[in-house]
Every structure is written in structure tokens, then in C-alpha cells.
């Protein structure tokens, strides 16, 4: 059988790394990093997810086709998140008429 059997020690190492990274992300949340708090949290979560995909989900040992399939999926996720954020961020680029009532956003009645 060509399937790769990972050693138990590898799984224990990945598990330990995931737990340490969880502690790190909680610790980092209590430190005031300004705008970087969110970035740090997402980088740590992304790294944890990569460890799970690569070792627990055996992506490391899969064919190029399977890896490509994952890459395509992530590409579309980036489009979904990225393009929406670009659209949102660029809303202020075009001149807008002045707001008549600054509080209108919250007046639902």
C-alpha cells in the first residue's frame, strides 16, 4: 500500500504545537498591539489551520491534483473576502453628497 503512515510522535508534536499556538493567540489578545491584534490572531489561526491540513489531513502526502484542488478553493475564498473588502474600502474614493442627518444611520423608527 502506497499510503503514508505518519509516526505517532509527529501527531503528538502537531497536537502540542496547536495547543501552544492556542495559548499564544489568547495571550496576544490581552496585549495591546493596536491594529495588529487582528492580524496576529488571523496569522496564528491560519498557521494552525495549515498544520491541521498538512499533517492531520495528510495533504502533505496527496497528489498534485488534490493540492491544486485545495489551492483553487482557497483562491476563491481570497476572492470572496478580498474583493468584498476592496469594494468596501473603496466606497469612499468617489465623492458623496453631504449627509443630511449624521444620526440617520441609527434611526430605524
Amino acid at each position: 500500500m502506497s499510503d503514508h503512515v505518519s509516526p505517532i510522535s509527529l501527531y503528538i508534536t502537531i497536537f502540542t504545537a496547536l495547543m501552544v499556538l492556542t495559548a499564544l493567540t489568547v495571550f496576544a489578545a490581552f496585549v495591546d498591539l493596536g491594529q495588529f491584534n487582528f492580524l496576529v490572531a488571523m496569522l496564528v489561526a491560519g498557521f494552525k489551520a495549515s498544520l491541521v491540513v498538512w499533517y492531520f489531513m495528510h495533504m502533505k502526502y496527496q497528489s498534485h491534483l488534490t493540492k491544486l484542488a485545495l489551492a483553487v478553493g482557497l483562491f476563491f475564498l481570497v476572492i470572496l473576502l478580498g474583493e468584498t473588502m476592496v469594494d468596501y474600502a473603496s466606497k469612499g474614493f468617489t465623492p458623496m453628497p453631504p449627509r443630511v442627518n449624521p444620526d440617520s444611520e441609527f434611526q430605524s423608527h
Partner: protein
Amino acid sequence: MSSTVAPADQHHAAHHPALRHHFNTMAQQKEAAVIGMWVFLLTEILFFGGLFVAYMIYRIWYFDAFAEASRSLDLFWGGLNTAVLIGSSLTMAMAVRSAQTNKRMATVNWLILTMILGCVFLGVKVIEYSDKFEHHHVPGPNFVWASEHPSAALGAGEAAPGAEGEPAPAAATGHRQLSLTPDQLQRTTQIYFSLYFTMTGLHALHMIIGIGLMSVITWMSWKGKFDAEYYTPVEMSGLYWHFVDIVWIFLFPLLYLVERHT
């Protein structure tokens, strides 16, 4: 093509009972299953991705409300559940490894342990949800955002929700000066909790489905349906379970750790 067909025909009489007729080899069959499962998981990634986009936009719009509401979640339960779920991913990986190495009883035991950890996660979620109901933090007519702020309790509590278009003049005093009045907080924290219940609820639904899948796989393992040559269902359930774990890896910092400092 004929060169690949020939060996399969030769071994046809002695092939593995799990090998379907439309595949030449077990490896080919496995490859098809793996890529099919990953394509399914990609649809799941984009399914949750839509929720993440909604979360991102509302978080930018009402960051102070998200920070306030996020602080009301109990970090102990969230952290515990993260540890439990990562632990269940380890036991799931061990279950797949046991199937790979032909250890039938070890596979069954690791799967049962994974299901127990999954149930622990859901049990903690029940504690958290009931806490939200007690504190009126469930979006809807009974929602009251008044936890730490006496001023907010007066402005948005039972007195008059909304105060009829007149926002309270004093901003709520939280861990730091907030840009939103209590009346605005009452409305915008509901958006956070709507997303909280949608995202964690759909995640919990995936966990329930995962436990259901695993109970079938455990029974099949017990019956001796799998061996080192054929354990695809075990590995596919594993991929699904790890995916659910990954969703939580992102949900935990997004929901529990919006702004914990100050």
C-alpha cells in the same frame, strides 16, 4: 489506456472486495475519493466564507459593539472547547492511523474517544447558550444589552427600548470610552450575537453530523469492514472532522478575542 486496463483484468479474480468495477486499482479508487471529499470541503469553506465576509463587514462598521459583546463571552469555556476540539482532532488522526495499520479495536476505541470529545464540546456549547438565554443576549424581542453598564441598563433596558429616536446623550462607559450610545449598543450588539449564534450554531450542526458519521464508521470498523488496504470511509470522516476543527480554529479568535486588552 489499454496498458492500465490489462493489469486490472488480470487481477480481477483476486481483487479486494471493496474495489468497485469502474476503478482499476485500490490506489486509483482512493485518489478519487480523496479528491471528491476535498471538493466537498471546498464548498464548505466557501459556505462558511460567506459568513466570515458578513462578520468582517459588520465588525468594521460596529467594532466597539463587537468588542463589548465579545468580552461578555466566557473565555474559559471558549478556550476549553478549543482544547477539546484540537484533542479530538488528535484522536481522529490516531483512529485513521490505527485503520492504516490494521488495528481494528484501536480504530474503534479512538473513534469512540473522538465522539466523546465531540459530545463534551457540544455540552459546553449548551452551557454557553443557556447562559446567553439567561442574560437576554439572544437576538430578538427579549434582547437586552445591559451587562456591565448601569447607564446602558437605564437607556436600553425595560424602560423604553429605543427611547423613540432620541439617543441617550452620554456614551456608555465601558473598558474604554465607546463611540456608541447605550441605545446604539442595544441594536448593534444584536448583530454580533446574530452572527455568533449563526456561526457557532452551524458549526455545532456540523459537529452533530460528524458524530453521526463516526457512529456509523465505528460500527463498520467493529464489524471488520476495513483493513490496511481499504479504510477510505475512516479517512473521509477524518477529513470532515478536521475541517470542522479548522472552522473552530478561526471562530475562536473572531468571536471570543475581538478586543480583550484594556
